[in-house]
């Protein structure tokens, strides 16, 4: 027996989903299809002659050492941003959960940076680290450390990691704090009576109970580091010096819009698309089911 109510099928259901379908087609399926098609073509710089080349763009791409280097840069960047972001947000949230006086002020101050647009955050930090006039660069100079992210690739990476974290930590903090506050107080008290000290309580009770939040944030942070940091990089380093901060998404832009290699750029977009899809699959298939208690 079918338990759900059945309605006679007419035009209404189609009409009701049509707007959603139209939006998905226009803003997702169509451009994605364009990218897929584009990735199989080679076009000259003036757009006069186009040739269908099957998977040559991909072959060229994976033979290109600068592309593989970009993978490495992305991996370093994503790992640093995600681990530092999750780690410091968790520490701040755990601390904030213990603060009694002025907790609201403290929370608000931590959340503020989230309201700053990414590009502005990057400009802010670039300015503070500016080798000539930046206050932080000046401070580093005073303690004998020479800072110039325009020349030093490692320092450029540090700059975009800091700019990226500036926005990410408040976001993670908010989720972690909400997660910590939803843990019943009596659990912590029971653990205290059972003999666990504050650190042990955090490690054996609070942290395991936060695991759904942590995994959710892990995926969100990875997606952020992979795809949403374009504005930061463009404003802070423009991928330099010497490609040391050219992450995958920035390379798509550089090769496509500056190098005018549309086919190669489209092939890179397709690779990125595959990464997003697999991350999403991981989140839905694996994490949403496994991480619960």
């Amino acid at each position, binding site marked *: 027996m079918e338990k759900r109510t059945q309605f006679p099928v007419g035009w209404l259901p189609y009409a009701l989903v049509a707007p959603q379908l139209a939006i998905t087609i226009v803003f997702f399926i169509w451009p994605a299809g364009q990218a897929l098609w584009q990735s199989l073509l080679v076009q000259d710089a003036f757009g006069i002659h186009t040739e269908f080349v099957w998977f040559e763009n991909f072959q060229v791409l994976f033979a290109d050492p600068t592309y593989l280097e970009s993978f490495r840069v992305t991996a370093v960047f994503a790992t640093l941003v995600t681990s530092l972001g999750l780690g410091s947000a968790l520490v701040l949230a755990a601390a904030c959960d213990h603060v009694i006086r002025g907790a609201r002020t403290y929370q608000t101050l931590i959340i503020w940076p989230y309201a700053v647009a990414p590009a502005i955050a990057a400009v802010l930090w670039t300015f503070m680290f500016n080798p000539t006039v930046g206050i932080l660069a000046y401070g580093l100079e005073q303690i004998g450390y020479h800072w110039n992210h325009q020349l030093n690739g490692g320092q450029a990476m540090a700059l975009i990691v800091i700019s990226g974290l500036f926005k990410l930590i408040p976001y993670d903090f908010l989720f972690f704090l909400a997660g910590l506050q939803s843990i019943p107080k*009596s659990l912590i*008290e029971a653990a*205290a009576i*059972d*003999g666990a*000290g504050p650190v042990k309580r955090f490690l*054996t009770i609070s942290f395991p*109970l936060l*695991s759904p939040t942590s995994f959710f944030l892990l995926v969100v942070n990875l997606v952020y580091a992979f795809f949403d940091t374009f504005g930061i990089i463009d404003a802070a380093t423009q991928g330099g010096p010497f490609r040391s901060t050219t992450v995958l998404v920035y390379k798509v832009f550089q090769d496509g819009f500056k190098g005018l290699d549309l086919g190669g750029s489209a092939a890179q977009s397709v690779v990125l698309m595959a990464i997003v899809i697999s991350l999403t699959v991981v989140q839905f298939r694996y994490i949403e089911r496994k991480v619960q208690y």
Partner: protein
Amino acid sequence: MAKLQLRNVKKSFGNVEIIKGVSADIADGEFVVIVGPSGCGKSTLLRMIAGLEAITSGEILIGDRVVNNLEPKDRDIAMVFQNYALYPHMSVRQNMAYGLKIRGLAKDDIETRVQRAAKILELGDLLARKPRELSGGQRQRVAMGRAIVREPSVFLFDEPLSNLDAKLRVQMRFEIQKLHHNLGTTSVYVTHDQVEAMTLAERMVVMSAGITEQIGSPAEVYQRPATRFVAGFIGSPAMNFLPGRADATGLTLADGGHLAVSVPAALAGRELVLGIRPEHLEVCAPQEALFTLQTEMREMLGADILIHGLFGKELLVARLSAAEHPAPGQALPLRALPDRLHWFDAASGARLEAA
């Protein structure tokens, strides 16, 4: 196992004094119930014994140690929480073993203790389950198991049955009693439910607004309530109170009504409150009656019937055998035996002895 002593324990939150000096001596192996209406400070008192709340002044001793400044884990206590507070990500076995593991007990030792507790509480088949796969009663038993395995000197129970349905509550009451009989561990049990308090307690502490009204066995508290508050709080339906002035002929009420009751000589001429339990009223001939009740409403309980009615302006209740069923509006002559009457001072509420 150990005795537990409270010496003039006080607690303030800011300027508000929640507990205004509680003293009690709880003997080794005794089962004491702290009972009182919500907000009387009973849970706070228990949490102070557990070490979850700081003590503003006074002393708490477990065994012969003053524990005021000890961490909960160093007080040698175990607590059962109202919402059970089971660790949701751990199995029943891990829940019970958690405290033992932290204390660094050997693996076999932990397993033996868990198995023993599981056997006592009939949790043997459930050890591998997670708390979310258990029913309310089973969770309650796991929470008790977690307390038992620790083999503490004192068990603390914070309204452990209030999340269960009525039938399960009766069953768990039996089990807690059986458990205490077998283990003989000193226990402090907090509840707002007077039936739980009466049935479980060896001695009970009746609290109201941060002070102890009476400490005594359930029978003492029922038969000789120390204050008007205790008299009204313990017993269901609540005791009838008739405030008035005592004279040679009896008690004259505020609304002019007169009760032909023999007031003890020592109490003559004072403002008093007469207390009579509904179950101690009985129907009698009009000339023997203490007062006549104008029946207003009846509540049939099965074996008994509750008659609500007016004497002058006072609304009173009598609990009679179900054979009596006066019609509404009918006048019902009632009396009570002299030794069933309770006298309280009108101003202080303190019990006044007839002798």
